[in-house]
Structures are given as structure tokens and as C-alpha cells.
């Protein structure tokens, strides 16, 4: 009764785009969990806007993956019919928003700030991609990412330099999240190949500019810059945390139960 999973190509170009598209997809899904639950109505709408921007970016990227792959997969199949191992999002995106639902607001906005900064740096560089389709996607997405960064960094400063309670939560979020940031800047065969053929930058090239922006942000928020750890998360290689299965179950239920279902 369930729809069979699809297999995706392992070609580096496809994998490079999947890492971006899946990170946007899974982060968008996580932010969607706030819909109807944010601390105030206005912020509820703001978070949902960001979630929808990310889903939109993911749709564009997954559609491009389908074209480059040449196996006839469309965005819905790629978004909903893969096995967990074939999702290539960075681990930071899949972490729950915090204990319980909808989770911890400090954790949510700090992750948004970290990933929006990273995405913005990537999109800026992808504007010069040798793939003109990807360059066009980047041209649109970079504007969205700039706003995501402004909105979430504002919150990081307000909460980090806020009350005793908000600062405590922000420090706890930083302690949890920081160790997952290493994955964003580790290069391997996939991004080396992308850099060689002009598709996009090596991820380790983003490390210094990202750290510089984080240093400035954390100083303004009166938060300590955490030390690096030896821990390395591996979501972009398909090895996920125990949280990934649950989020995929949420996302895939409809497509699995009602194959090809549309609005």
C-alpha cells in the first residue's frame, strides 16, 4: 500500500545541490512547527514566512536536481520519497527546536542566525555558478537569506543581551548548536568537485567569513564565543541523528499513503 522509495544519483553535482536543497527543506519543516505556536502573532507570521522562503528555495533546488539527474524525478518525489540515508541536509537543520513542541525560541532563532549567515555566504558565491539555473536561484534566494539573517540576528542580540532568563537560554542554545557548525565548513569530494567545475564554492572557504560575522554577532549579544570541539556531525553524508526519522515520518506520511497526492 505504500509508495516505494526512489534512489538518487551519487554524482557530486547532484549531491552538492541535494545538500543545499535538503538543508533548506528540513530547516523549513522545523520552522513550520512554530506555525500557530510562536510567542506573539507577528513573530508567528515572520517565522512562517521564513519557513516558506526555505521551502521555496528547496523546491527550486530539488527541481534542478531532478533535471541534472535525468531520471525523471520531480521535486515532490525528491522531497518525499527518499530513504533517510539519501537525505543530505547538514545535521544542524534536523535538530528539534528544543524540548517538547514547539520547542525553545532562543534555540530556534540562534540556529536561524547561524544557518542564514551560512546560506547568505553560499548564495552570494553561487550567483557566479557555472550552472546558470543555479545562479538564477541564488540571485533570488540571497535576498531572502539577507532578511532571514537580519531578523534572526536581531533576536539573538535581544535575547543574549536581554534578561537573565533569555541570556541563560541563549547560552544553552549556543552550547548545543556550536559543535554542529563544524560540518558546515568541512570540505570533501563533493564540494571539491563543485569548485573544480565552477558549480559552487568549497565549503571550507566559507569558514573564515562566517566566523567573522559570528564573532561580531556574539560580541553584540554579549555571548561567549564557544571553543571548537572534535565532534563532527555527518548529515550531509546521509548519516543522521535519531531525530531525522521522526521528521521524515511527518513529512512523508501523505505521499506514502496517498501516492501522487496534490492540493
Amino acid at each position, binding site marked *: 500500500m505504500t509508495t516505494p522509495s526512489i534512489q538518487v544519483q551519487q554524482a557530486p553535482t547532484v549531491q552538492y545541490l541535494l545538500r543545499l536543497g535538503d538543508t533548506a527543506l528540513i530547516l523549513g519543516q522545523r520552522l513550520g512547527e512554530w506555525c500557530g505556536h510562536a510567542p506573539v*502573532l*507577528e*513573530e508567528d*507570521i*515572520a517565522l512562517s*514566512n521564513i519557513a516558506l522562503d526555505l521551502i521555496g528555495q528547496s523546491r527550486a533546488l530539488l527541481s534542478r536536481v531532478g533535471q541534472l539527474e535525468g531520471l525523471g524525478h520531480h521535486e515532490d518525489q525528491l522531497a518525499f520519497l527518499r530513504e533517510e540515508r539519501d537525505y543530505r541536509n547538514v545535521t544542524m537543520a534536523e535538530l528539534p527546536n528544543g524540548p517538547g513542541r514547539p520547542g525553545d525560541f532562543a534555540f530556534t532563532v540562534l540556529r536561524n542566525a547561524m544557518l542564514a549567515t551560512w546560506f547568505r555566504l553560499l548564495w552570494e558565491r553561487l550567483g557566479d555558478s557555472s550552472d546558470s539555473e543555479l545562479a538564477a536561484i541564488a540571485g533570488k534566494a540571497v535576498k531572502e537569506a539577507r532578511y532571514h539573517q537580519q*531578523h534572526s540576528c*536581531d533576536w539573538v542580540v*535581544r535575547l543574549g543581551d536581554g534578561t537573565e532568563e533569555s541570556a541563560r537560554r541563549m547560552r544553552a542554545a549556543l552550547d548545543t548548536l556550536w559543535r554542529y557548525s563544524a560540518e558546515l565548513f568541512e570540505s570533501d569530494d563533493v564540494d571539491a568537485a563543485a569548485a573544480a567545475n565552477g558549480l559552487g564554492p568549497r565549503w571550507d572557504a566559507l569558514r573564515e567569513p562566517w566566523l567573522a560575522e559570528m564573532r561580531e554577532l556574539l560580541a553584540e549579544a554579549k555571548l561567549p564565543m564557544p571553543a571548537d570541539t572534535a565532534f563532527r556531525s555527518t548529515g550531509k553524508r546521509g548519516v543522521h541523528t535519531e531525530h531525522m526519522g521522526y521528521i521524515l515520518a511527518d513529512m512523508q506520511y501523505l505521499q506514502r499513503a496517498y501516492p501522487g497526492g496534490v492540493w
Partner: protein
Amino acid sequence: MNQKQNAANQSSLNEWPLWEVFVRSKSGLDHKHCGSLHAADAPMAIQLARDVYTRRLEGCSVWVVRSDQIVASDPADKGMYFDPMEDKVYRHPTFYKLPSEVDHM
């Protein structure tokens, strides 16, 4: 302090101030009042105005102003302020014959 005042003070401590939002739909047109929202300060009010009131391409510029900074006419004065204008159609410039060279006045 009575209980009612106390409750009002409590809620003003816990609630962000109200802001009125004005959106300009495109360059050259006026900013139009389109609603209000709660925000902690001006930068947050601008961001949230963008998120709440321009998500369907309604605008290219937003203004916000603290609602308590707006001075409004008293609804009780409506009779003496505005009703007397009802029968003064001669204040519309529609009783003049314009020379034909003056188009679209």
C-alpha cells in the same frame, strides 16, 4: 491603587506597545494606513510590518509610528466638526467653466 488600575499596569508591562503601519504600494503613491501591530521597538516594528503587511507584494516602503503618538479628533466632536460640510457643495470646484486648454483639472 485599585485592582483594575493594577491589572492595567501589569498588562502594559507585559505587552509590547502598539504601532500603526503605513504601506506605500509603489513609488510615487502615498503611504496608506493598513493596520497595526505590537513590537518592542522601532526596528522590530519595521521588520514585523514587513512580515505581516507586505507578504503578498503589497508594498515597496513601510512607515510605522507608535499609536500613542497619534493625536486624533474626538469622536464626540464629529457633529460640530464634520456635519456642517454636508450641504456646502459649492466648495467643490465644479461650478466653473474651464477653458478647453486646461485638461484633466
